[in-house]
C-alpha cells in the first residue's frame, strides 16, 4: 500500500461508489468524478491517517468511470478540496477573505503560527497542515477555520489556541460557534420575533 498502486475501494466504499455513479445517466458516468475523488480521499485518510489523493488513486478512480487520466487529474488539480500532497492529520484551513480578515483572522493565523504551524507545510509531528483559504461561506460567524470536516467559528486568538491544544491532546473540540451561538443566530439571543423563537 506504500505506493498506492494496489488501491481498491473498501467493501463499504465500493457500494457507495456504485451508488454515486448510479446517480448519473448512462454514458454520463464521468460526472461522478468529483464525489468519487472525495470518497477516495476519505478512504486514504481512513487507511493511512492522511487525507490526500496519490496519483495512482486518481488513475484508479478515472479508470472506474472510463475517464481519461488527464481529465481526472485536471479536476483533482483544479479544486483545492483535493490534496495532491500529503497533509497533516488535521488540515487547518483558515479563511482569510475580507469578512474574516475584518473580524480578526489575522489573530487566528497568529495563534496558529505560535503553535508552530506554517502555511502550506506539515508540522514535524505530522499533526497539522495550515492553509489560508478563500471564503468558506460562513461569513456571518467570522472569523472561522475549517479543520477536516468541522467548522470552528467566532474565533479569537484564545479560542483558536484552545482548539489547537485540544487537537494536540487528542480531545475533540466543540465544533461550530465558540461563543455559544446556534448556527448564525444573533449573539446573545433573538432580537426580533422573540415570541416565536
Amino acid at each position: 500500500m506504500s505506493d498506492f498502486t494496489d488501491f481498491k475501494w473498501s467493501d463499504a466504499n465500493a457500494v457507495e461508489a456504485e451508488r454515486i455513479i448510479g446517480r448519473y445517466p448512462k454514458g454520463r458516468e464521468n460526472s461522478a468524478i468529483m464525489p468519487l475523488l472525495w470518497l477516495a480521499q476519505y478512504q486514504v485518510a481512513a487507511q493511512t491517517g492522511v487525507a490526500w489523493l496519490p496519483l495512482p488513486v486518481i488513475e484508479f478512480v478515472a479508470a472506474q468511470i472510463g475517464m481519461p487520466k488527464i481529465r481526472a487529474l485536471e479536476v483533482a488539480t483544479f479544486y483545492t478540496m483535493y490534496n495532491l500532497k500529503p497533509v497533516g492529520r488535521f488540515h487547518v484551513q483558515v479563511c482569510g477573505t475580507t469578512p474574516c480578515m475584518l473580524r480578526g483572522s489575522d489573530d487566528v493565523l497568529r495563534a496558529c503560527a505560535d503553535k508552530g504551524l506554517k502555511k502550506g507545510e506539515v508540522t514535524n509531528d505530522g499533526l497539522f497542515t495550515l492553509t489560508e483559504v478563500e471564503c468558506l461561506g460562513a461569513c456571518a460567524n467570522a472569523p472561522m477555520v475549517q479543520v477536516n470536516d468541522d467548522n470552528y467559528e467566532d474565533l479569537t486568538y484564545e479560542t483558536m489556541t484552545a482548539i489547537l491544544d485540544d487537537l494536540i491532546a487528542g480531545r475533540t473540540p466543540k465544533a461550530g460557534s465558540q461563543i455559544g451561538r446556534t448556527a448564525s443566530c444573533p449573539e446573545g439571543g433573538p432580537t426580533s420575533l422573540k415570541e416565536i423563537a
Partner: protein
Amino acid sequence: MPKVTVDGIEVEVPAGATVMQACEAAGKEIPRFCYHERLSIAGNCRMCLVQVSPGPPKPQASCALPASEGQTILTDSPMVKKAREGVMEFLLINHPLDCPICDQGGECDLQDQAMAYGRGGSRFDENKRAVTEKNMGPLIKTVMTRCIHCTRCVRFTEEVAGTNEIGALYRGENMQITSFLEQAVSSELSGNVIDLCPVGALTSKPTAFHYRPWELKRNDGIDVMDAVGASITVHSRTAEVIRVTPRLNDDVNEEWVADTGRFAVDGLKERRLDRPWVRVNGELKPASWGQAFEAVKKALAGVDAGEVAALAGDLAAVEDLVAAKDLLTGLGVTRLESRTDGAAYEGPAAHWRFNTGIAALETADLILLVGCDPKLDAPLVNSRILKAVRRKGAQVFRIGAGTEPAYPITDLGNDLALLAKLPADLAEKLAKAERPALLIGSRNASAEVLAAAHALAGQFVKDGWNGFNILHTAAARVGALTTGWVGEGLDALAHNPPKLLFLLGVDEVALAPFGGATKIYIGSHGDRGAAVADIILPGAAWAEKPGTWVNMEGRVQRSLRATFPPGEAREDWTIFRALADVLGIKLGYDNLDQLRARMAAEWPELGREGLTPAAWEAAKLKAGKPAGPSKPRATDFYSSNPILRASPTMRACVAEILEGRVPQLEAAE
C-alpha cells in the same frame, strides 16, 4: 436565416452561426486565439470581443455568441478597440518578450495581433510568472512560459486525435498545459498541435532554432508516407527540405497531417543513393551512369522477356510507373506487379479503391474493419472514423487484430473466417444500417477475403452510397493499379521467379525468393532493396520530383518539386527515358509535359487533378473461405518505408514513444 448588421453592412447568415461567423461573412476580421473552426468553442481568450446590441452593454465574445435576427454588431467602435487593447494587455502580462529567440517568430498569432490590436505598451510592472518546460516527447518542444492557455492543443487531442493526452492542470494564474506525467504525446497526429498553437509554446522539436519562416521557399506537395495523400506545403531552404506543414484540403486531410508526413523530412538527407552502383564479383562498386546502363543492357541481353519482371514500390509516382511500364512493354515484358503486400484485388477500379471517400466516411453509421488498423495505417482516416462515432453515433466492429483505437470498438475476434459468417448481432445491425462502410486492410485483401467481402457487398453498396473500401497503406498503389501494374500476384511470381527483376523502390518485400534473379533497383534510399540489388540506379525522393500520386480514394493529386536530388541521382522517369535510348526503344516523350499527355491519353482521369468516381460492378469471385488470423502490420507506425527508417526524428519516436527509452540529454552548447 437571421439577418444581422455588421458595421452597417447587412448580412444573412445560416441559422446557428455565431456572431464571429457573421462578421466574417461581412468581410470583417475578428482577432482570436482560442477559437478554431475545426475544434469546439472554448471562449476563453476573450480576444474576439465585439459590441452587440440588443444585449448587455458590455463587449461580447463573438465566437461563442449565436447570431440572431436584427442584431447590430460593431467591430470597429471605440468600445471594441478599448476591449481588445485591454485583453491584449492582459495576455501579454505573463508572456515573455522573447520573440527574437522564439521559433514561432514571424508566424505568431500573438505577435501579429499585438501589432494590429495592442496598445503598444504595458502598464504591468510586477514580476511575470514563469512555467517549467513540459516534456511532450521527441516531436513537440515546449516553452510553457509563452502559453496563453487557449487550450487548442487540449481540444485537439480530445476531439481530433481522440487520445486525450494533453490537459490543463491547476487553475487561474497557475494553470499549466501538460501531458499526463509529462509522458511523450503518442498520437499519430500530435504534430498538428504545433500548427494549432497560436504562440510559441508548442513548437517543432526536430527543427528547433533551424530556420525563420520567411527564409523558407514554399511548394505545394502531397504526403506519400501513407495512402491518404494529405495536401502539404513543403518548406525548403537552398537544397534542403526543412519542414512540412499541412495544406487546407477538406476532401482529404482537412488541415491536419500525420506525424510521419510532417517530421520524416530529415530522412530525405540520410542514407541517400547519390550515384549508380554495380555489383562486381559479389561486391557493389560505384559506377557511372554509362557503366550502369551498359550493365543493365548486358543483363537484359541474356534473358527472355518472359523471364523479366518488375515490382512497383510504395512511394513511386505515377510518372515513374508509366515510364517504367512503357520501357518494359517495349522490351516485351508483361510481368508487372504492384501488390507487393500480397493483396489480390484486381479488375474494375471500384474493387480496389476507398470508394466511400475519406470525407464521406464521417457520415457512416456502421463501420466494419477487416484486417486493418486505421490508427496506424491511415491516422487521418482514423480521425474521420472518430468523427463518425462521436457525431453520428456510428458503431465500429473489427475483425482482426489492431491497436486500441480512440473510439469504442466491438472486437469480433481475430479470425478472418468471421467475414464469411458474420455474427448474428452484426448481421442484424448491418441490415438496418443506412450507410455502412467496410474497410479491408490492403495487406489482408487476399482472394478469399475479397470473395467473402464481395458476397457481402450488396449490403454495403446502395443507391448513392458505396461502402466497399480497401484501406491502402502505400501511396503508389492506386496509381499503379490504375496504370495496369497488375500481374500474376506476388506469390505466383515467387513460385516462378524471374531471372531479371526491376525494383522501383521496393523495400517492403521479402526478396529471398528472388535470390537467383539479377536485381535492378531504382530508388532513392539505401535500404533493404538496394542492399541485395545487383545494379542500383539512384532516383529522386518524393520532394525532389514533380509527381502525380493517386490516393486511396482514387484522387489524382500533383506534387511540385521542392529541392533537387542529391549527387548524380535523377528523377526516376528520366532514368527510364535514358535507359530506353541505351536499349534502343522509343518512348515517345522527352519531357514531363509530353509524358503527362501520354498518361492522360490512355487514362483520362490522370489528366487532371481531382477525383473521378469509379462505378460499382458487382462481382462473384471464385475463392475458398477466408480463415485464420489477420496479417498484422509489417512495421511500427514510424518505420513503414525507407524514408521513415532513415529519419533520425522517426528513430527518436520509436525509441521514446514506442520503446519508452528516455532520451540522453545533451550538454548545453
